[in-house]
């Protein structure tokens, strides 16, 4: 029953989030601020994780393909598909759910418990739209760029690791990356990214917005935001994969 309550309240909240803004110019400023905060602020962790995960995926693929019957460029093919189809859109989104989701929930939760949200409401401002809409718009806008960067860096990390360990030559790896390349896979990854960006920001904002109590509850909201965003991401990953790839 509690699930129904939360789903219902989430939808009511979202209906107010997508109502007409009081002033577009203010929302535009907030949007730019959030692009910087949520997007550019996450670039560092995306870069580090992508390079190292790309390297590990390549080494593991090479380890698995140690057979004279499998051509070496298969390492490139396997790395490319793992990175484009799953690692960059899903795993990086899960990592962003941890970083961005907790950030959003704690920011909005703190505003709730310190009556800043009440202050917005008293001024006649639609606090749900003002606080949440720019975050959703910013994440939906910037996350696809982060994921494309992640794909590129993960492949670069894979190539570097392959060369350093001698598992694969640069020619074979690059040939493998290009072999039987389907551009639709990138489209699929980007569609997933858009959904995941929406889920991370809206689910985390929901947990922050309905925080009740004090500092302890803000912490709990932050944790719940990460847990529930991750669960919903995994659920939608399955649904979207079924719809888009079947």
């Amino acid at each position, binding site marked *: 029953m509690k699930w129904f309550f939360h789903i219902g309240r989430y939808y009511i909240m979202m209906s107010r989030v997508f109502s007409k803004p009081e002033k577009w110019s203010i929302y535009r400023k907030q949007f730019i601020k959030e692009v910087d905060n949520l997007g550019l602020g996450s670039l560092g962790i995306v870069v580090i994780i992508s390079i190292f995960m790309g390297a590990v995926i390549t080494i593991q693929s090479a380890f698995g393909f140690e057979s004279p019957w499998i051509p070496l460029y298969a390492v490139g093919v396997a790395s490319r598909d793992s990175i484009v189809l799953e690692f960059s859109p899903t795993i990086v989104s899960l990592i962003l759910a941890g970083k961005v989701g907790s950030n959003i929930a704690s920011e909005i939760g*703190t505003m709730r418990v*310190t*009556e800043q949200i009440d202050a917005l409401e*008293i001024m006649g401002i*639609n606090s749900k739209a003002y606080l949440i809409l720019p975050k959703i718009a910013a994440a939906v806008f910037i996350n696809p760029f982060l994921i494309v960067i992640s794909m590129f860096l993960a492949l670069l990390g894979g190539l570097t690791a392959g060369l350093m360990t001698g598992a694969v030559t640069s020619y074979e790896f690059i040939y493998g990356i290009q072999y039987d390349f389907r551009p639709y896979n990138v489209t699929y990854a980007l569609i997933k990214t858009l959904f995941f960006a929406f889920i991370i920001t809206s689910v985390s904002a929901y947990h922050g917005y309905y925080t009740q109590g004090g500092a302890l509850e803000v912490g709990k909201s932050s944790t719940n935001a990460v847990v529930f965003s991750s669960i919903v991401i995994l659920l939608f990953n399955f649904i979207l994969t079924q719809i888009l790839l079947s």
Partner: protein
Amino acid sequence: MIEVKNICKSFNGKVVLNDINIVFEKGKTNLIIGESGSGKTVLMKTMVGLFTADSGEVIYEGKNFNKLDFDDRKEIRKEIGMLFQGGALFDSLTVEENVMFPLSMFTNMSLAEQRDRADFCLTRVNLQTAHKLYPAEISGGMKKRVAIARAISMNPKYLFCDEPNSGLDPKTSILIDNLIYELTSELNITTIVITHDMNSVMEIGDNISFLYKGQINWQGHRDEVMRTNSVELNNFVYASEFMKKLKQSLTHHGD
């Protein structure tokens, strides 16, 4: 003028407000006093729509707030200035930006005009040197003054103050009280102040409503508070030894 009619509010079956009827007059400082947990803040939050009343009406100049739709409520809320207990300043904005915030949201003022207005409001609350500081960098008293400046920046018709003196030293408390009192007559607004500070009651209470266990127990002027026959109000007013001695000396003087 704001009229509160037959307001009832309960949480999880516990009655917090029971049939509250008060008229808050324009140009006057209307005080709601009472012990902690008596329902003062709930009443104020119900009046401004942060809580929904179980029954009853809140009428702003003839408009029934409870029956208005979201957009019409927003229009009334634009005429409300509110000072929260903790100030509720926006942490990410400077003092000046906090005061400019409602102006940037609801007016077509240029940035320079907004700055001028913010400067005027901050000067009015005697805070000329903190424009570029963030809320975390200023004292509790300064935060309250910034919150007042923000509340008056849009020339409100109604000013709500939730325990404006909480956490302040007596001298700063008097400054805040005087500021609220002056602004009320200066701007001819309806001011409602929640407090349990007897100094405030005696300094600025034009109309006082004493809330006891969710009900209005007593209403009157500050001059009448000290001579009331209400046992509950007497227990509240003369709770401290100092006030008890004051009462004795007043009685003695009266004899």
